[in-house]
């Protein structure tokens, strides 16, 4: 078991051309990397989940984070939240292009909405890592 892990860790980095298109498409369109790699069922589930979570966040009028500097906690929360939002790819870009702008408001629904928007991006990161592993031949 330990040897197997060691062998897995020593695997050389696959060529960029093998995984970059899947990862980039996976960022732009949630589940797109899996569609490119002919994992249509899994791609559809990922697309539905990430898009579903993002759209629920929009319908709950969640706020989008903007990077801010200040004390450590403010920087960490706002920059981390912004990165999470951006990781949704096309969903984030479209919502910003269409002028979605919601100020941070009081109330549990808005708060959940903000978390839904960030989590959609973070789930998309998981999908991108999975697409990378498939493209690199480390996973079926």
């Amino acid at each position: 078991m330990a040897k197997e892990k060691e062998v897995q860790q020593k695997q050389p980095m696959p060529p960029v051309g093998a995984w970059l298109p899947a990862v980039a498409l996976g960022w732009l369109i949630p589940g797109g990397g899996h569609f490119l790699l002919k994992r249509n069922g899994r791609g559809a589930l990922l697309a539905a989940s990430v898009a579903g979570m993002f759209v629920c966040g929009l319908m709950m009028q969640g706020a989008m984070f903007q990077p801010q500097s200040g004390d450590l906690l403010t920087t960490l929360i706002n920059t981390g939240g912004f990165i999470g939002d951006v990781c949704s790819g096309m969903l984030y870009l479209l919502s910003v292009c269409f002028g979605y702008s919601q100020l941070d408001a009081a109330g549990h629904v808005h708060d959940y909405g903000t978390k839904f928007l960030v989590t959609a991006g973070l789930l998309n990161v998981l999908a991108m890592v999975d697409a990378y592993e498939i493209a690199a031949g480390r996973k079926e």
Partner: protein
Amino acid sequence: MPKMNLSHFEAAFLFSLFASVVMGVVTKRTDRDRLHYGIYTFVCFLVALFGLGWLMYFGHG
């Protein structure tokens, strides 16, 4: 964009559902294991949801 007004439970339930599907899909190597892990994760979310809910209820006095 239509507005959605959910209770804490409904929002947390939706969150658990979406997160469990993604975790199930990306974590395991066979479809059977993915399904099992997705259901397991979803149940864990719900147990934590009810557990923390009751904890806060009793903690609040």
